[in-house]
C-alpha cells in the first residue's frame, strides 16, 4: 500500500503520523507552502484523507481530490467533514466512536467537580501560600445536583451512568425521546435548562445544534446553574455565555471546547467559577493510541477491500 497517497490534514498524533508514513505515502498538509497548488499536483494520487476535530475534509478539498475514496477521522465528531458531498461521491467516511467515550465522560464529571468544588482555584490558593493566612471559602456540593444532558448517545449515556453514582437525578433532551431510557425527557433545551443544576452538552454538532445554548437557555439555567461543554465550541453562543458569566447571570462553566480554538475569550481568565481546558476530551495516552489504531485499521480494511471497522458513510 506504499504507493497509496494519504493526506493528513493537520498534526494530531506522532504515533499515527509514523504509522501512516510506514504504510502509505503520507502528505502532511500543514507543511505544504501552497495548498491549492499541492492539491492540483497530487489530485491523482491522494486516495485517503485523515482529519480530526480541527481540520477535516470540506467541500473544496473533496472537489480537488477526484481519486479520494475514504476520509478517516481521528475523532468521533464529524462536523469538519462535508458528509453530504462524501455520500454524493461514494466516498467512505470513518470516525473513532467508543474508544474515546469513557475519557470524554470522565472529563465531563471532572469539569463538574472542578467547577463546583473549585478544585483548580483552591490548588492555586495553596500554591500561592494563601492558606497560611486563612482558609479557602466554602464551595458547592456536587452529589445530588440535577444533571441535564443534551444528547443521550454513547457519551451522554456514559456521563449519566457516572453522575448517577453521585446520586444526581438525570434528565435529558435529544431529537426524539428514548422510550427505553428511565431518565426524564424534556422536549426543549430551555425546559431542560430550567429544571437542572448542571447542563451538559454531549450531542453532535450539526446545523440544527449550532448555538443550541443561546441566551434563552442560559437565562433558564440561571445564576446558580453550571454549563459543561464537552461537545463543540459552536454548540454555544460564546459571546452570550461570556457576558452571562461576567455579569454573574450564570453560576459557572466548565469548557473543553470553544468557537475559535485555540482562542479563548480573555474575559473568562479571571473568573473563579470557570474551568477552561484546551480540548483534551480524548487526550490520554491510552485513548489516542486506540483512536490511531482505529484510523489505521479502517484505512487498511478499506484498501484490502474488507468491511470498515467504524463506518459513518
Amino acid at each position: 500500500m506504499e504507493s497509496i497517497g494519504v493526506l493528513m490534514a493537520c498534526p494530531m498524533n506522532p504515533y499515527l503520523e509514523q504509522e501512516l508514513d510506514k504504510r502509505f505515502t503520507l502528505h502532511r498538509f500543514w507543511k505544504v507552502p501552497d495548498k491549492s497548488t499541492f492539491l492540483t499536483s497530487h489530485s491523482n494520487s491522494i486516495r485517503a484523507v485523515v482529519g480530526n476535530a480541527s481540520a477535516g475534509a470540506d467541500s473544496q478539498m473533496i472537489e480537488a481530490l477526484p481519486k479520494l475514496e475514504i476520509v478517516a477521522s481521528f475523532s468521533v465528531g464529524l462536523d469538519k467533514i462535508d458528509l453530504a458531498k462524501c455520500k454524493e461521491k461514494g466516498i467512505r467516511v470513518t470516525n473513532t466512536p467508543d474508544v474515546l467515550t469513557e475519557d470524554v465522560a470522565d472529563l465531563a464529571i471532572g469539569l463538574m467537580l472542578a467547577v463546583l468544588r473549585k478544585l483548580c482555584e483552591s490548588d492555586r490558593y495553596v500554591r500561592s501560600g494563601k492558606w497560611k493566612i486563612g482558609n479557602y471559602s466554602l464551595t458547592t456540593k456536587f452529589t445530588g445536583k440535577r444533571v441535564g444532558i443534551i444528547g443521550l448517545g454513547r457519551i451522554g449515556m456514559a456521563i449519566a451512568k457516572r453522575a448517577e453514582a453521585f446520586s444526581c437525578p438525570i434528565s435529558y433532551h435529544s431529537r426524539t425521546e428514548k422510550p427505553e431510557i428511565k431518565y426524564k425527557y424534556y422536549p426543549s433545551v430551555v425546559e431542560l435548562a430550567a429544571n437542572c443544576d448542571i447542563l451538559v452538552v454531549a450531542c453532535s454538532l450539526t446545523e440544527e445544534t449550532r448555538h443550541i445554548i443561546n441566551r434563552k437557555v442560559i437565562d433558564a439555567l440561571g445564576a446558580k446553574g453550571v454549563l459543561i461543554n464537552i461537545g463543540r465550541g459552536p454548540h454555544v453562543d460564546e459571546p452570550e455565555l461570556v457576558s452571562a458569566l461576567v455579569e454573574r447571570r450564570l453560576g459557572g462553566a466548565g469548557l473543553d471546547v470553544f468557537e475559535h480554538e485555540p482562542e479563548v475569550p480573555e474575559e473568562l481568565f479571571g473568573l473563579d467559577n470557570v474551568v477552561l481546558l484546551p480540548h483534551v476530551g480524548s487526550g490520554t495516552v491510552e485513548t489516542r493510541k486506540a483512536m490511531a489504531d482505529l484510523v489505521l485499521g479502517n484505512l487498511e480494511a478499506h484498501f484490502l477491500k474488507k468491511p470498515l471497522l467504524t463506518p459513518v458513510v
Partner: protein
Amino acid sequence: MNNIGVLMTCPMLEYLEKQLEARFKLFKAWNLSSSKPDFFKKHSNSIKAVVGDTTVGADAALIDSLPNLEIVASYSVGLDKIDLEKCKEKGINVTNTPDVLTDDVADLCIGLALAVLRKICVCDQFVKSGNWINGDLGLASKFSGKSVGIVGLGRIGSAIAKRSEAFNCHISYHSRSEKPNTNYKYYSNIVDLAANCQILIVACALTEETHHIVNRKVIDALGPKGILINIGRGAHVDEPELVSALLEGRLGGAGLDVFENEPDVPEELLALENVVLVPHVGSDTEETSKAMADLVISNLEAHFKGEALLTPVT
C-alpha cells in the same frame, strides 16, 4: 440553656458560632476577654461543653482544666484531636458529624483523582495564562478502568468505591478486618494493596496504628505509575518520604487534601505538575457545613435536655 457555658476551640463556621451564641453562653478560645489563666479561673466551672474540630479538639490538658465538662461535640467526623480515653474515663460524652459529610469527601476524592490523572488544574492554568495559542499540552492518563485500592472501607471508603465503580474501576481494599458484605477484593496487608492498584486512596480513621500507614514501603509498591490520594489526615502519610518519592519520580502523582502540618505544605510540592494540593476542603461546602453545624447543635441540645444523642461516639 443560656447560662450553660460552651467553649469553642477555634473559628469554624460563622453560622455555627451564631447558633451557639443564641442558645448558650459561648466562649471563643481564640478571642478571650482576659488572659488564658484568668479566663480559666473565672469560667472553667461554668463550661459544660467543648465544640472542637480537626484543627483544635479537646486534649487531656483542656479536659483536665474543665472540671464540669459533660460533652465534647466535634465539628468533624475525625476524632484524632480528642483524647477519647480521658473522655471515657471521666464519663464525658463525645459526638461527631458522620454521614452528613460522607458525600462531599467522596466527591472530593474522585475530583482529586480526575484532576491528577487528567491534569485538569495544569490545563486550566495553561489556558488561563494564554499559552494554548502556542501549542497543545502533552497527553494525560485515563481514569476509567484503573484499579482503585482503598485503605479503610467505612462510610467514606464505601462511598468512594461506589463512585469509582461507575467509572469501571476495579476496587480492592485494606482494613483492620475483612468486611463480609462486599464483592471487593481484600488485602490484609497495605503493601500488597499498593502493589496491586494504580490509585491508592487513604480513607481510614487516624489512630496510633494508622499513623504513617503510607510509608516508604507502600510508596515503593505503588510505584512510578501509581497515584496516592489522601482525604484522611496528613499524619496518615510519611510526608518527607512522599515528597522525595514525587521529586525523584518514584511515585507517579498525588492528590492531597491534608498535610502533616497544616496549613504548611512542603515547598517542593508547589512546583510539581503531577500533584493537586487543596487546603483541607473535604467537607467545606455550604450545604455540608450547615448540616454539620446543625448536627453539633442538635447533639448539644439533646444532651442538655437529657435526650438521646444523635451521633454519639462509642
